[in-house]
């Protein structure tokens, strides 16, 4: 799950990014509208968390540009103006959700997840394959009733593979969706994470390697 945070307050942006990364999301940060647009042109984000009160290019304009571009990216708008008409206006601009500041961080996480789920209709909150169960909201994976101790990145890789419903997921896609732009595309971080995940999932092996294509469950 890849998220872009657009917030001009650098410390707030860093804190939100840290929190969302701990939740297993790949998070990039932009501090202004121009940076947000260049990043959304480069990467395929699931959710853009957009501060409406940006200096220079306003959050409204960024939102409009994203909607006009017609990507599948969902926009979650953050704003200090929480009056009803402000919220209505924000949603009219094409934002998928709207949160007035200050908000509870847990709510932000829940709303980001809900947006992603909405973008992939028919996806149950609990993904399953064989005796493996993954509760996406609670970030808990169980195999045969036993809870697995997975890191956020491992959970994200597992979620992506389960979401693909048997289709092959390439290492590039895993890198794009699970890791943020700080990750080195030439490192073997994907391979390492997948092998660690395999080990933690135990036997019989669930993740299958498709040569020259990627992985699938």
């Amino acid at each position: 799950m890849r998220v872009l945070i657009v917030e001009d307050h650098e410390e707030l942006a860093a804190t939100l990014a840290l929190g969302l990364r701990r939740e297993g999301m790949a998070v990039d940060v932009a501090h202004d509208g121009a940076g947000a647009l260049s990043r959304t042109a480069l990467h395929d984000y699931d959710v853009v968390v957009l501060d409406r009160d940006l200096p220079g290019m306003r959050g409204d304009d960024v939102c409009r540009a994203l909607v006009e571009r017609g990507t599948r990216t969902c926009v979650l708008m953050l704003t200090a103006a929480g009056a009803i008409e402000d919220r209505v206006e924000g949603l009219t601009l094409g934002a998928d959700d709207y949160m007035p500041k200050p908000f509870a961080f847990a709510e932000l996480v829940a709303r980001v997840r809900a947006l992603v789920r909405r973008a992939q209709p028919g996806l149950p909150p609990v993904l399953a394959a064989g005796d493996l169960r993954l509760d996406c909201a609670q970030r808990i994976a169980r195999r045969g009733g036993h809870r697995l101790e997975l890191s956020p990145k491992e959970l994200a890789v597992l979620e992506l593979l389960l979401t693909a419903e048997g289709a092959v997921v390439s290492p590039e896609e895993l890198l794009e969706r699970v890791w943020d732009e700080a990750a080195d595309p030439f490192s073997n971080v994907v391979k390492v994470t997948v092998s660690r995940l395999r080990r933690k999932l135990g036997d019989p092996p669930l993740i299958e390697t498709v040569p020259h294509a990627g992985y699938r469950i």
Partner: protein
Amino acid sequence: MRWLPRRTVRLRLTLLYGALFLLAGAALLGITYVLAAGQLETKQVTISGTVPTHTLATVGAAGALQMHFSSTGPDAVPTSGTASGAGPAPSPQELQAAARVLLGGVPSKGDPTFILTQLAKDGHAIVAEQLDTQRSNELRSLLTVSGIALAIMALVSVGLGWLMAGRVLAPLGTMAARAQRISERNLHERLALEGPDDELRELADTFDGLLDRLEHAFEAQRRFVANASHELRTPLTLERAMVEVALADPAADVASLRKICERVIATGEEQERLIEALLTLARSQRGIAERESFDLADLTRRVLASRRADIRRRRLHLDLRLEPAPTSGEPRLAERLIANLVDNAIRHNHRAGLVQVATRTAAGAATISVANSGPIVPPEEVARLLEPFERLTGARRATADGSGLGLSIAAAIARAHGGALVVEAQPEGGLAVRADFPAPQRTPRPLAG
């Protein structure tokens, strides 16, 4: 009084117009009547009568006589006459005598009908032609016909007046309808009345001008509220997020939590400063209740003393020219103004740049001016800098750049003192700000004795 129609201007104009028309028509009718009556009055009156023979020797026995009078009454003078007797035509003297007989002995009354009746009763004369009846008949019919015409024309004029008033007042209706639509939500709309450049158009343009000013004021107010809520809520969000994220971290230890706590306190202090600044802004916008005398030069020295270290650290060159500048007002607010100007000059400066501070008295005003080197400020941006939360380069963020309220507060303080803040962009970069304070107001001392 519910049953009365609403007394609109249109109705009143129509009624006024109709009433005036009716008045003018009635006057015209009256004049016509009087003139026509006069005309009829001078008409000839013809009286026929039998005259006793002894008065008219020439007429002979009991001749009939016809006479024309210029008017009726005892003083009537016959103008001509014909006698049907055998004799020659009567001479004027004879006619006069006959008239006296005919009209004599009659009470001196102007009513010709009465005279004629009297004459007939006496058996001296009969009414040959009742001219009075004819005259009053004519006058009556004149009155009737004119009255009907006046009534018809009055109705027509009321109708026309209604139409005309409606036509003239139509722009007012348009204006009312458009003005009713305008609220604080759509203050950008205007009456934009089209048509000739007349009084109504002037009214509409005046109203549009008022809306312009209102819109600006509302827009500034709206921007202030939006900015203030952004500036106040963002640190709250940050504090909450920092604490929540730290608590959600399963690997959190005492050291990391302590670090978060320190950052939360720092954010809280930032908020305190912002709230303090907002309160100062509100206080200085309210005006000054009591005035104390003070010298701007003293205040400036005090402000600069507390910023020496900052100036040294940034290697700024301070050019100080302090002349006495006595004024009166609230010294704490004036010190705030000076501090804001100096802080701006320090903050928005190049490293090793220049800060010029001067106080003086000129033209009865105490003046403090602060100029600094720094990045070039576009002159069109200068007015915006005086608005709350506006900073240069479009950045609007409460970080080390200050609250963004400094210049607004300074301007409000200068205004509260009855002075003004003048901000100019220097062509070589940086700002030059000047605050004028009025000369000290001496409290009038009661005269001894």
